């Protein structure tokens, strides 16, 4: 072989140099989290929710307890104009001359000939009059927001007109700017209703008097308002609830309760878990066995029972708000999960070489735990914390939902859902708004937790 076939390998020094800046664990994790778009969006949502909770009430300064009686159960984007009208003038009604001795009894009571609206149909009053029915001793008026046809569903009986000469009725009961169906039924002397009815469809317009508008702060002075003018009522971006309270304001104040519990309780029980778990893991042996057995017992304790006991201990009666009993119950019963996780990590880390090295160099126990062990379990702890937030929010919502948490009038997302559920069929927005906030919050924390797990701990990385 010719000597020229060989060439000495040159040593390339550049291979040895580190071309990129060295990153700490947290810097590296942050880079990885930033690359995860889902987690990043979730992080922004979480920040936005916190801003919403903390600063929202300063921007949207509506009182969450104030009732807007002109707009009850108004869905978002509902028409909020009102027509200015003159002051209310009482109505005498319509009467007919009956033959002497009352009208003769008829074999069958018929439906009134026609039901008509007298004057304009307004939210302050709807005035109905109908043709008299032969033999009727009284009339009953029904109101429905749905068409009675074809099922004959007349709705709620709102008045009995007991004088057969009186063939009119003025409805002033809780009118909303909707289309109503009024049905009039004749009754005999015994109070038996006829099966025949006559229905009138009435489109009600929202009205307000000049004096009311001034009193509610909607107009400067009454002089500027003329009957027939239209006026804009107070704005409610997310609508109002069944008592006319602004949903956006209530959601902001409700977030204070829900997120307070959802964030503070997990913090508290994760810290308790860290202390407990690291003590068990570090000392080990019998002590560890004893502590972990106790943790197993705590897991088996019934949460609802302790919730109730704590409510009684805190002196919170039925139907009162108990934020602190709720938090204490969560903290006292939820720590074993975090404790077990931290213990497992500590047991693993305890055997690592660098712990031995540190010990050889004379490190004290406290230093080992605080400087080496806990910082190294921080990733797992942070992930646990993020996943604990949604479950705490769920627990709060559940407890308030069944009436063991926050009670009216304090808003929380759970109690708002509870209230909204009752009117779900007619005004679904009262349930949708708080339920959407709970869902978005839980979703954001879940996705953020996934992202943090992938970023912080390569071994726990999910297969998604």
């Amino acid at each position, binding site marked *: 072989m010719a000597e020229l076939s060989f060439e000495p390998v040159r040593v390339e020094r550049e291979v040895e140099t580190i071309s990129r800046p060295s990153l700490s664990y947290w810097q590296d994790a942050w880079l990885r989290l930033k690359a995860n778009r889902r987690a990043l969006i979730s992080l922004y949502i979480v920040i936005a929710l916190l801003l919403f909770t903390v600063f929202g009430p300063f921007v949207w300064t509506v009182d969450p307890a104030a009732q807007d009686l002109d707009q009850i159960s108004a869905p978002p984007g509902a028409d909020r104009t009102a027509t200015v009208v003159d002051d209310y003038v009482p109505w005498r009604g319509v009467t007919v001359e009956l033959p002497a001795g009352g009208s003769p009894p008829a074999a069958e009571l018929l439906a009134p000939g026609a039901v008509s609206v007298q004057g304009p149909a307004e939210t302050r009053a709807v005035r109905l009059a109908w043709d008299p029915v032969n033999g009727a001793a009284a009339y009953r008026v029904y109101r429905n927001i749905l068409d009675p046809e074809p099922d004959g569903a007349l709705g709620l009986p709102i008045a009995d007109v007991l004088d057969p000469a009186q063939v009119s009725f003025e409805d002033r009961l809780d009118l909303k700017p909707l289309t109503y169906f009024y049905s009039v039924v004749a009754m005999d002397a015994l109070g038996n209703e006829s099966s025949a009815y006559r229905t009138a469809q009435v489109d009600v317009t929202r009205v307000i008097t000049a004096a009311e508008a001034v009193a509610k702060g909607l107009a400067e002075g009454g002089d500027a308002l003329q009957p027939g003018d239209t006026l804009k009522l107070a704005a409610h971006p997310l609508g109002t609830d069944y008592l006319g309270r602004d949903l956006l304001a209530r959601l902001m104040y409700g977030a204070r309760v829900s997120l307070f519990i959802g964030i503070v309780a997990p913090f508290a029980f994760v810290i308790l878990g860290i202390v407990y778990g690291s003590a068990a893991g570090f000392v080990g042996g019998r002590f560890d066995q004893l502590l972990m057995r106790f943790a197993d*017992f705590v897991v088996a304790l019934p949460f609802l029972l302790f919730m109730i006991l704590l409510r009684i201990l805190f002196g919170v009666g039925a139907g009162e708000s108990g934020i602190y009993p709720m938090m204490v119950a969560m903290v006292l019963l939820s720590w074993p999960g975090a404790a077990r996780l931290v213990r497992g990590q500590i047991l693993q880390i305890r055997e690592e070489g660098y712990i031995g090295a540190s010990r050889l160099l004379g490190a004290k126990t406290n230093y080992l735990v605080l400087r080496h062990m806990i910082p190294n379990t921080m990733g797992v702890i942070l992930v646990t914390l993020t996943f604990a937030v949604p479950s705490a929010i*769920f627990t709060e919502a559940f407890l308030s939902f069944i009436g063991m948490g926050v009670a009216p009038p304090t808003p929380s997302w759970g109690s708002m859902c509870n209230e909204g559920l009752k009117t779900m069929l007619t005004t679904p927005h009262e349930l949708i708004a708080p339920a959407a906030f709970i869902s978005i919050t839980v979703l954001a924390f879940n996705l953020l937790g996934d992202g943090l797990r992938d970023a912080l701990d390569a071994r726990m990385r999910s297969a998604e």
Partner: protein
Amino acid sequence: MLAYTIKRLLQGVITVWFIATATFFGMHAVPGDPLAADKEVPPEIWANLQARYGLDKPVPEQYVIYLGNMLKGDFGISYTQQNREVNDIIAEHFKVSATLGILAIVFAAFGGILWGALTALYRNRAPDIVIVFLVILGISVPSFVFAALGQLGVVNINNALGFTLFPVAGWGTVQHMIVPSMVLGLGTMAFLTRLMRSSMLEIANSDFIRTARSKGLPATRVFRKHQLRNAILPVVTVLGPSIAAITTGGFVVEMVFAIPGLGRYFVQAVQQLDYTVIMGTTVFYGAFLVFMVILVDLVYGLIDPRVRLE
């Protein structure tokens, strides 16, 4: 195996004893007289009532009597319904809760395995993306919202059909059971789907799957025999805690659908401070959950011979 079973059962008994003790002393630590009524009761009657419930004895003696009775399976008499035994109440209402819970867990387990397998099969394609989105939704929506939506759906279905296919509330027939159990199982199904999916994907990359493929097994056989079977194991592990969560967490569904289950009864008892019912139900539930977890662990050992029960 036998030694392990005995050890686990023993631990379970100790746990139940702990729950019973904690419940007993917890209830006695609460201020308030369980026999206090709205009406003023003459002292003689009150003393008689105390004697009937054994409340005139010192607390340690009460505790011993309580444990002794519990060993015999006797939880005593209800305070608010004074001619009803707690055992009767549990027997009557737990049947309903258990039926609901079993239906829900079956629905959740089958759904979870099916959807999880589908997502893994269609990884990163339309079915996968849709199901993963629904799963995230299922995990993030509270159960009472599902219950409300379920009921709304029932109303709409009945309206569209013109007759009552599913009753809106109540209990009794199979039609009553379908919607509530689906609602109850939905959250667990989402969770199991997610678990199944990650477990399927993990196994798809393992060596034995590659070996099975390279030796020429048809794809469906690899999927069914190797991938699916192994991927189900983690799902089985979490079934124990899931059964626990479903049977006890059925309260919301029981309330929304007006189902006479034990959960609803328990909360009622709690609100009325019905000591014996609270203690009896708590201990019963605790025991049920503890032994359910043990059962699932034992079954797991049978399904997967690699798992050594120690």
